[in-house]
């Protein structure tokens, strides 16, 4: 992992200040009266868990405490992009 993560609010900060939250899921399936449990269960539990570019939520826990989105290559641990 890079030793610095570019927080969209605070700029480059040491990785120890951050916390991995979760994978950024695809959009929530439409829920109406005819709810199919399979896609909802998949949204809750399943991961893309890619070996390559992953979209994740991280939190700047020891800084501004805001959540942000991060694009990260899990095969090399390099950060491609962060966005608020």
């Amino acid at each position, binding site marked *: 992992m890079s030793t610095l993560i570019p927080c969209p609010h605070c700029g480059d900060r040491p990785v120890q200040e951050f916390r*991995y939250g979760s994978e950024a899921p695809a959009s929530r399936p439409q829920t109406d009266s005819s709810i199919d449990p399979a896609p909802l269960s998949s949204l809750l539990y399943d*991961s*893309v868990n890619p070996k390559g570019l992953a979209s994740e939520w991280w939190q700047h826990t020891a800084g501004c405490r805001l959540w942000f989105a991060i694009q990260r290559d899990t095969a090399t641990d390099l950060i491609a992009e962060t966005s608020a």
Partner: protein
Amino acid sequence: MSYSALSLLIHAFRGHRDWKPAWREPELKPAYDIVIIGGGGHGLATAFHLAQLGAGTIAVLEKGWLGGGNTGRNTAVIRANYLREESVRFHAHSMALWNELSSTLNFNVMFSPRGQIDLIRTWGKLRDLRRRAAIMERHGVEYDLISTRRIREMVPDLDLGTEGAIEPGFGGKRLPVLGGAWHPGAGVARHDAVAWGYARAADALGVDIIQNCEVTGFRRDGQRVTAIETTRGSISTSKVGVAVAGHAGVVAELAGFRLPVDTWPLVAFVSEPLKPFLHTCINCPATQIYVNQSDKGELVIGGGPDRYRSHAQKGDWETVENVTRSLIDLFPRLGRVKLLRQWAGMIDVAYDTSPILSRSPLDNLYLSVGWGSGGFKAIPAGGEAFAKLIVTGMPDELIAPFGLDRFQRGRPLFETASASARG
């Protein structure tokens, strides 16, 4: 050829010049009845049990070399002190198989049941371990709460942090050891030997073990896999068993479905060899460290997983620093000892930290994945159960709780007694 004291003696007199390779290097055939993906402990054990059941022609495909993944990267601890009834029952059975494994395989896996002490440093952990001891008693696994005096007798080098304490929890170290739990059946084994022993035994029963053969895709007819594409050609097959670690999500993606599994690095490292001083495994959940001394004298040290998911196979230095700090806290006199090497295994952790030993969304593809930080100890029972699952298509009672459908049915098996448990 069967290994024995006599065969060793005969080879010794011949100057050890004519040992034969322990398994063949067969050519990949175009078709097999069953293909197992993953040549680690679980894949090889599954192939061995399938061959014993007479399940037809079997191939094991391994991307790299045998036991080169998590089978060769773990800290080799074997134990059954879990939380869930279902996990305890499964791992108690696995421990019984470990005791017989060397003679089952005619290969010395160097299983050494030296016991494990779980150190209790918080009142919450004391309550947790009392609960686990009660569950384990129901399944015939010995697990006894012991005093700090007993711990001091067993491991005099441990700094329990009680010096200067008025009573447990007041004075002394911030988290003095309050007591422990003694798990006498736990132990360690030689991890390479486990992969090699199963490979040799499976090969003797006719299993084709194909190394340097990576799966690149599946050919499907509806919900059935008809053939597997590999870097060494296409193989048609009627059943597929997936026994991979660190790549469960990658293989599932190739097969066209997703799993409730994330991949995390789990760091381990060893010290330089020291004279024998640590005769049991020590586990300290409060400071996230477990340590045992190998037969060569090296301390084998592990901790919790890294703080973020990764497939990079290297692990975070921050974890090594934290775990080392915990080690010095327990054994202050190791402060000047050098570390020899450090590595990481990529562990596939399911949402509830329990394994997935199950049918899959495809009709003839079966899963033995998501073993997290605890796959090594589960190899004998996991291989046996997975072979039965592949042959019958139905999970037996022992593994029924580990089905993939447990999430959608609202029956997840949250397991806290593992290094990869969610905090």
